[in-house]
């Protein structure tokens, strides 16, 4: 019987090519018209650590990791044990491994998954020949699993070409040969993992990090100041050449303090600007975030969250930067905090982030996470784009001394670009007067604090506030990468006769009270679910009186992703 979806893990020690295998398999499925998603698991080592590609392919869009994987391919067994808890298997799972690779580690064996011998390298080759010519067992394995799923060799071949594009002809030929023998070996296994037929359409294959980069470019970002940090680095590595092609610029700063200050300098000059970081770097940027608030300089700060505090787990996900994003920095410092609701949504949320920053002259924080950033997914590209909003640079009264920080009906005041005659102003982080001169009187302080607060109070998000899916008087509130598994749980519960509504927040600050209240209308039970220990979102919503005290909290730290079954069993 053909199936709706298939989940496969390619695991091995670093350098075994697990990620390449996953990418080839995912792309082959995408070529054939399937949806798909590939998460990446890494250890801390740069080389030689454990690595696993977790791939699902399906006839319908996928936004969550499965409860259990169908197929586990061991490219080797070195260190794979360290992943056991992150790769759930059960007695219905199949493990494909080469007997030559040695015995299965006990932590994997205890899943009771069925082990099937799959000799992956040519038995006629000597060890020396294998070392010289490469073993290509990752491609062999990807092709074998593709054959099991019913993917054609043509689709695998073109995926291989796309993934290996820049390799030499010799390497591509050797891999193609490995793919051909892998496909043959896969068919011989006698296993049935055939997928239902797929419907082809114009789709994209994109990671969350790339999606944010693309959205930022669409929004007009032409300057990025950044410092390398996992898991945000690949975002800026993708952006650097693309920015340059568009006439923009990326500067690798000496540290995150410099990165965000470069962003403010460039933004002050009129260029929409962004920095990209993760928790530790974000902590370093916090003082300057307050400067952006006080001096009213637009800036986009992307935080690809990882497990914290301190250095935490650099390569693994967590949703634990809510507090710092909403509250971080001393003083009263209103800012905008956004969280994409899916990987596809990273594009338009990032684009909107630029527009909001520019039009309100505030820092906008985009909370992504490793689970979004480093996951590659097949999406239906959205043709709808957010409506552009620009910075007010004109319209200031001329003649008298220019009041950059004028107090009046409209809290958003024009910020003429340096170079404009007659409107010279100083961007000022000290409490200042209307013309921007430092002032330490109570009047100026209160007036400017109110001005900045009013900008956000007046902000009307419309449909942008978030999304709501499904009916039912049980409501689950989630954000970011937790929305996917929550929606899948709701789908199952609803199918079982227990309708559940999911509310995904995109605008975390300022909180969209009206929209949220109407999304919660008729709720008898409210559950706030998030991937951190201290229930940061729950306490924020409670403190803002956006949810009743009877609301429940499901909060646990990362890096394990929420499984749909975990959410379903709590909600049911």
């Amino acid at each position, binding site marked *: 019987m053909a199936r709706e979806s298939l989940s496969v893990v390619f695991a091995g020690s670093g350098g075994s090519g697990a990620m390449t295998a996953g990418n080839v398999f995912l792309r082959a499925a995408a070529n054939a018209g399937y949806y798909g998603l590939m998460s990446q698991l890494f250890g801390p080592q740069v080389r030689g650590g454990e690595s696993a590609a977790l791939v699902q392919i399906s006839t319908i869009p996928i936004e969550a990791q499965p409860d259990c994987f169908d197929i586990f391919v061991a490219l080797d067994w070195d260190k794979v044990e360290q992943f056991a808890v992150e790769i759930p298997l059960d007695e219905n799972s199949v493990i494909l491994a080469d007997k030559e690779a040695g015995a299965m580690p006990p932590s994997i064996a205890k899943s009771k998954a069925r082990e099937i011998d799959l000799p992956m390298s040519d038995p006629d080759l000597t060890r020396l020949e294998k070392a010289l010519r490469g073993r290509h067992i990752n491609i062999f394995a990807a092709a074998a699993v593709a054959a099991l799923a019913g993917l054609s060799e043509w689709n695998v071949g073109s995926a291989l070409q796309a993934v290996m594009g820049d390799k030499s002809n010799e390497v591509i030929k050797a891999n193609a040969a490995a793919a051909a023998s892998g496909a043959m070996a896969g068919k011989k296994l006698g296993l049935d993992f055939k997928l239902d037929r797929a419907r082809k359409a114009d789709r994209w294959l994109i990671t969350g990090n790339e999606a944010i980069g693309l959205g930022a470019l669409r929004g007009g970002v032409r300057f990025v100041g950044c410092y390398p940090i996992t898991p945000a680095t690949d975002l800026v590595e993708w952006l650097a050449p693309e920015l340059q092609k568009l006439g923009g610029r990326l500067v690798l700063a000496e540290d995150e303090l410099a990165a965000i200050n470069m962003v403010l300098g460039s933004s002050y000059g009129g260029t929409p600007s962004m920095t990209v970081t993760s928790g530790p770097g974000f902590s370093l940027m916090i003082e300057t975030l307050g400067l952006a608030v006080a001096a009213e300089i637009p800036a986009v700060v992307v935080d690809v969250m990882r497990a914290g505090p301190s250095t935490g787990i650099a390569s693994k996900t967590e949703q634990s930067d809510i507090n710092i994003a909403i509250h971080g920095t001393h003083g009263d410092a209103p800012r905008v905090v956004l969280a994409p609701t899916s990987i596809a949504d990273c594009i338009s949320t990032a684009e909107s982030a630029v527009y909001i920053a520019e039009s309100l002259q505030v820092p906008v924080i985009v909370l992504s996470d490793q689970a979004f950033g480093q996951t590659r997914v097949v999406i239906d590209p959205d043709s709808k784009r957010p409506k552009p909003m620009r910075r007010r640079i004109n319209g200031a009264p001329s003649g008298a001394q220019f009041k950059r920080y004028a107090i009046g009906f409209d809290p958003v005041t024009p910020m003429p670009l340096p170079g404009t005659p007659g409107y010279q*102003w100083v961007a000022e982080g000290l409490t200042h007067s209307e013309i921007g001169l430092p002032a330490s009187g109570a009047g100026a302080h209160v007036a400017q604090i109110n001005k900045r607060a009013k900008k956000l109070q007046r902000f009307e998000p419309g449909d942008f506030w978030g999304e709501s899916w499904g009916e039912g008087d049980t409501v689950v509130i989630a954000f970011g990468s937790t929305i996917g598994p929550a929606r899948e749980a709701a789908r199952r519960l609803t199918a079982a006769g227990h309708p559940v509504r999911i509310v995904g927040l995109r605008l975390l600050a300022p909180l969209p009270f009206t929209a949220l209240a109407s999304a919660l209308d008729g709720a008898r039970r409210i559950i706030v679910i998030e991937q951190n220990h201290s229930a940061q979102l729950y306490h924020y919503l409670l403190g803002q009186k956006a949810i009743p005290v009877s609301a429940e909290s499901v909060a646990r730290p990362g890096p394990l992703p929420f499984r749909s079954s975990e959410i379903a069993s709590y909600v049911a």
Partner: protein
Amino acid sequence: MSDTLASETHCVKAMAAKDFSSGAHPIWCPGCGDYGVLSALERALAAHGRPPHEVVLVSGIGCSSRLPAYTSCYGFHGVHGRALAVATGLKLTRPELEVITIGGDGDGYSIGGNHFIHACRRNVDMLYLVMDNRVYGMTKGQPSPTTEPDWDSDIAPGGIGLRPFNPLALAIAAGANFVARGFAGDPQGLADLIIEGIGWPGFSFLEVLSPCVTFRPEQREWKHMVRPAIMTAATDRATATAQVLAEDGFNLGVLYRGERAPVATPASTKITLADIERQFAIGV
């Protein structure tokens, strides 16, 4: 972006120093060296000839960092120590503006030390002017990285006991393209150095001895200690380094002129977002 600049900006009538003054009253103590620096800067900008709206003064935190508000130029008064980073982002995206970074010894050499090193290394075309009074004045008298080891203060009784570092040697080593020393009590000489620093390509570093008469009254003696540098400006880094390490810190003038090309604006290929987006399309 450059269309905001008037096309004939260089043909406007000659400007006077007072055209660069905002008229705001400085917070500086009477007798502070920073008045002399402000006056020298106004003279230099007038002579340089670009109108105030084409000049941006970027500063951090400290007495001297208050300077931008006292001029009629555009300005950016940011957080402590990060002025060079702000100026870098601005100059790289608006190269047609005249960007000058202003600050003190605490701001530039202590909390902003890392940015100082990397700004020299990056060699963006701008002037960095540091008013060095060898003390944290705004917080009422603590030793800075250039304070003498035996200078007594509340926070370091009997002296900090550390050798002051040499910002000029540091700048030369890190890659600054122009290194000079001026004195606040010699506004005309200082103005000349500012003009030359602005005009020199790449990152120009100008250390200005600017006495703090409140917390370091002994610095009033500096006017008797400074002298025009007897050595000629070196053009190779080894000689320049040897000279600034050997001298007593009171030689005024240009001490190093380099020939590194400033960081360039990369050439852009004209493509559209749609071209970029094509990489995500699946298959054929």
